[in-house]
């Protein structure tokens, strides 16, 4: 299911674009995308042009991604410090950020960094990417592990940015955020509109819709 979401999100990435991939489902996109060799992966710890995972035995401890996993450098890669890396993000130089989310509200705003009832001790680059990338694609399972809908009228978890995201890709379908409202663009093959509506308490309208 997670790989299916990643495969669908990959289609949202234009050839030649500079893309930052968050942890979780977005990480799966890296492997899929590199097989096609068509995007430049920015990792906020300081590399543009992150390449595939190295084979066992060829791990370079000086070369990791933002999840601290070993990577390689693609031909044409560059290294830079953290201030420049986040200036790229905040300055709108990243074409697309693909991020996980805990919840999305009816206006396409996202909770992506803090869990309820836990001390706030980690945020990393989540807010910077959510607010700064030119386009933000959210990838997530449509329901939480507890079976609760994640696309809700109002966030009950802490908001990550006042900015609305652009596209939401789940295992149930694809939604666009247009003028601060959710528009269903596509249903997954095995999901009916009735099924989707039941699992989506936030209001949404029907766009030019197609089934896959």
């Amino acid at each position, binding site marked *: 299911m997670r790989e299916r979401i990643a495969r669908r999100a990959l289609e949202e990435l234009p050839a030649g674009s500079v893309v930052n991939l968050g942890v979780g489902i977005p990480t799966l996109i890296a492997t899929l995308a590199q097989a096609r060799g068509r995007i430049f992966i920015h990792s*906020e710890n300081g590399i543009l042009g992150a390449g595939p995972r190295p084979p066992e035995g060829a791990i370079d401890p000086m070369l990791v991604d933002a999840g601290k996993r070993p990577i390689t450098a693609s031909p044409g890669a560059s290294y830079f*410090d953290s201030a420049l890396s986040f200036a790229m993000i*905040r300055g709108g130089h990243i074409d697309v950020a693909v991020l996980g989310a805990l919840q999305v509200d009816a206006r396409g705003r996202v909770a992506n960094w803090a869990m309820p009832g836990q001390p*706030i001790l980690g945020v990393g680059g989540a807010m910077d990417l959510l607010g*700064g990338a030119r386009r933000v694609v959210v990838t997530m399972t449509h329901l939480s592990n507890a079976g609760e809908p994640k696309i809700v009228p109002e966030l009950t978890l*802490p908001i990550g940015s006042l900015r609305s995201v652009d596209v939401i890709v789940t295992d149930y379908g694809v939604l666009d955020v247009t003028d601060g409202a959710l528009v269903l663009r596509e249903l997954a093959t095995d999901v009916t509109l009735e099924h989707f509506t039941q699992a989506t308490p936030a209001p949404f309208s029907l766009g030019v819709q197609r089934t896959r």
Partner: protein
Amino acid sequence: MLGADAAMQLVQTGATIMVGGFGLVGAPLALLEALGRSGASELTVISNNLGEPGQGLGALLRQGRIARAIGSYFTTNPEVIAAYHAGQLEVTLLPQGTMIEAIRAGGAGIPAFFTPTGAGTALAQDKETRRFGERLCVLEQALYADVALVKAHLADRLGNLVYEKTARNFNPVMATAARCVIAEVDRIVEVAELDPETIVTPQLYVDVLVERAA
């Protein structure tokens, strides 16, 4: 040039220190080990994380030497969460881009700046805000330290620094924002051996070099 233990005598109890590294990658691990052997405590640490359990800054935390941490991502070390709950550690959380920009500003003589990151979120509570056009922005204060501990790959004898791959991360920026900058390097070379085009940190920022034991 000093040995690691001699260099860590420059860090006093109660000092504010910046420590480079993203997790353990690019962290000045030999300096941190020496700091563990020194008597310095009640430290305020500005660093993205506090290492891993028992490693890097995580070792100093375990020894109870860190009173306060300013950073962006502490949840990967469960001992940070435990110390916070036990009231042994004060934590200030900043978005990663805000943290490094605050350090950049500190080194560049800018006392504070407005940024849209974090506006309208729990991390902007009690912070001054202002609207610029459509965007709500938060006023963030610059960060500056007594001592910065950074890790580079090579140094020449003047203190010019060259980094390695993604181990660069926070290091060159922290090297601009402290009264005393101590760089741990893999190797020290003669002056003019480094190509001036490849030098990332010019020597005027660096006060002390510590070569890692070969």
